[in-house]
């Protein structure tokens, strides 16, 4: 029996090469456009990844509910825009009107996300910290909170994505090697980088930032030195929430139809992968990892010919990098980074 089965099995391995193709021509043609798109997505991943990295640095745990913090921000953007009567096609507005709407949506998203982040911390982590629960328990409550938020949204808004609302018409700005870079990509990348530099500087220079680094390095000693650990932890969650809210605005800008109850989950996983890739606990690593995951995913998609490949390629690269450098590319922690 077995001696018949094994050769037959070997014969029946799917050898038709239709499902995986290396389309080098398409890759060469679309190289620059996929680079710019990849950088845009990468900037969004990086902003979300910062939330993971900061919480990991301070509490040493994956905040699995961070993707829900992000999606709540997306809903903030969505409700602001629908209150402002935006539709699927962008209205022709004056420049300052666009900026005004964007800032309004940004503020709402940031408030929603930061609030959600604080609620997550209060409900899922603080009671466990007080009880000195084992680490696995933190992870499970994070997953529990994540499920609860997702399915509360599901209950409220249903399974289908929200109607697409477009904020503004992307205007062509540059022409790089025959590929047009539009205003949307420029706005997202520049705004994300400014936010990340601001976060980096805040953590490096401000008094609160010093507190965050102290708690990341050694919570007990930091407490002895007069750092209010609880306050620092809440602050960290708020910063993560603010960045997730900003990322939510950019995400809705880029993919208007992406607001869905579970829309944040895969993005969250990829953002966490970005944080790990760059070296978790490292603020600059999150930027690098985010951009890399964005670029690699987009290249993989063009090279292998299906948008589904984005995630597969991103994860495979993550595994490969971790095998070579288990601590990530810039693997020093938040606490050990220089003052």
């Amino acid at each position, binding site marked *: 029996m077995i001696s018949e089965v094994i050769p*037959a099995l070997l014969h029946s391995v799917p050898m038709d090469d239709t499902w995986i193709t290396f389309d080098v021509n398409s890759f060469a043609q679309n190289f620059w456009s996929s680079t710019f798109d990849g950088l845009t997505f990468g900037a969004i991943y990086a902003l979300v990844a910062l939330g993971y990295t900061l919480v990991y640095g301070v509490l040493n745990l994956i905040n699995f509910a961070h993707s829900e913090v992000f999606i709540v921000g997306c809903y903030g953007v969505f409700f602001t825009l629908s209150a402002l009567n935006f539709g699927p096609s962008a209205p022709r507005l004056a420049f300052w009107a666009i900026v005004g709407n964007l800032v309004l949506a940004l503020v709402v998203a940031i408030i929603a996300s930061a609030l959600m982040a604080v609620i997550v911390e209060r409900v899922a982590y603080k*009671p466990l910290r007080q009880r000195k629960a084992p680490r696995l328990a933190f992870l499970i*409550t994070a997953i529990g909170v994540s499920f609860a938020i997702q399915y509360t949204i*599901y*209950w409220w808004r249903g399974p289908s994505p929200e109607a697409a609302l477009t904020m503004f018409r992307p205007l062509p700005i540059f022409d790089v090697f025959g590929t047009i870079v539009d205003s949307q990509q420029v706005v997202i990348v520049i705004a994300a980088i400014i936010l990340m530099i601001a976060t980096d500087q805040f953590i490096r220079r401000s008094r609160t930032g010093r507190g965050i680094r102290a708690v990341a390095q050694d919570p007990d000693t930091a407490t002895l030195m007069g750092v209010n650990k609880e306050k620092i932890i809440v602050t960290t969650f708020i910063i993560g929430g603010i960045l997730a809210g900003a990322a939510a605005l950019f995400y809705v800008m880029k993919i208007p139809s992406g607001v869905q109850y579970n829309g944040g*989950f895969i993005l969250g996983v990829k953002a966490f992968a970005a944080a*790990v890739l760059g070296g978790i606990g490292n603020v600059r690593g999150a930027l690098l990892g985010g951009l890399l995951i964005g670029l690699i995913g987009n290249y993989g998609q063009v090279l292998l010919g299906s948008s589904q490949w984005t995630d597969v390629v991103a994860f495979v690269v993550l595994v490969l990098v*971790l095998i070579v450098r*288990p601590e990530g590319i810039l693997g020093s922690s938040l606490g050990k980074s220089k003052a």
Partner: protein
Amino acid sequence: MSTTDGPTLIPDDAAAQAIADREARMRPRRGWFPGLGDRWNALPRQTQWLILIVVVVIAYLLPILNPPLITTEPGNNWQIALAQMSVYALVAVGLNVVVGYAGLLDLGYVAFFALGSYTAAMLTSPDSPYVHIPYLWTLPLAMAVAMFFGVVLGVPTLRLRGDYLAIVTLGFGEIVRILATIIPAMKGQVGFQNVGHPPGTDSSGQTIFQNSNGTPWYWLTLTIIIVVLLAAGNLERSRVGRAWIAIREDEDAAEIMGVPTFKYKVWAFAIGASVGGLSGALFAGQVGFVNNQKFDIATSILFVAAVVMGGTGNKVGALLGGSLVAYIPLRFTAIAEFKYLIFGAALVIIMIFRPGGLLPARQSLLAYGRLAYNKLKGFAVGGSPASGKLVTQPGKEAGNE
């Protein structure tokens, strides 16, 4: 102890009693079964076996008894509900080996479940162009395939720890699901229908294992669960099991004490994966239809939730958690739509109030340690506590008593 430590409570019998009390408080004393674990352990082995046989017989009779309050009818067929509960229980038992014993956080366990399902489906379904073999042959084959991929995933990634491992396994689960969508041979959302079933017909010529009749599937899965439980119990008590516990408690210490941690972690991964593949194949046979929709990350996390909710590292807990996760939405069909919402909230509440799960793992290893300690100190086991002594003189070692 260094001279700068100051006053210290030396670990005398009072301290030992305090530890025992604290652990007693952690056990489910206030729960639904107060002190059951202690009473169970106090029973002689033969009595335990007798009770177990009665429990097993009742378990086998469940589909026929159809007990009133517990049944899922009307609404859901009780026999099919039992078959699904048994598959989930088997999944939880398999995942318990990885998460509970070895302490490896595997968030992509659904990948092995999917591999088992697809192995069974692609080798038995008429929809698949590949060679067809009898269904029962796919069970060991599904185990082998899943185990192979467990090793393939484990060897490069098990050098990672904790959260890194969690994210990598999560990615692996997602990769398997996406590949099932992309690869034409796996038929994406169309899937495979009429997955095979074990042979056999009853007196009227009807096949015994029908998709609409859960009873034979339940009995088959229950038998497999009992075999797996016996095997897992033996593993747990063996050198391998002790190595797993050591790795779970402190990997570095285990490594230093000469436990080849990497080897045993791969073992745990492979064994857990093979049980996952087995349950996947059973699931595919019972449901009779396999497509890519059933193997998403939410399901994977539900599996982990089942193990942790039941009690990590406890076989009975895993069984309970696995069956509950399948049972609750079937029993309360009205709330089935909110099952993830309820599980989410339940997970948070259980973790806050019972961080060890519903049935926490027995700490028999630690208990033996305490017995030995009490013997050494010359106290009667469980003797009355004396007052703790405070060592106030700096430099006095606690061990010099």
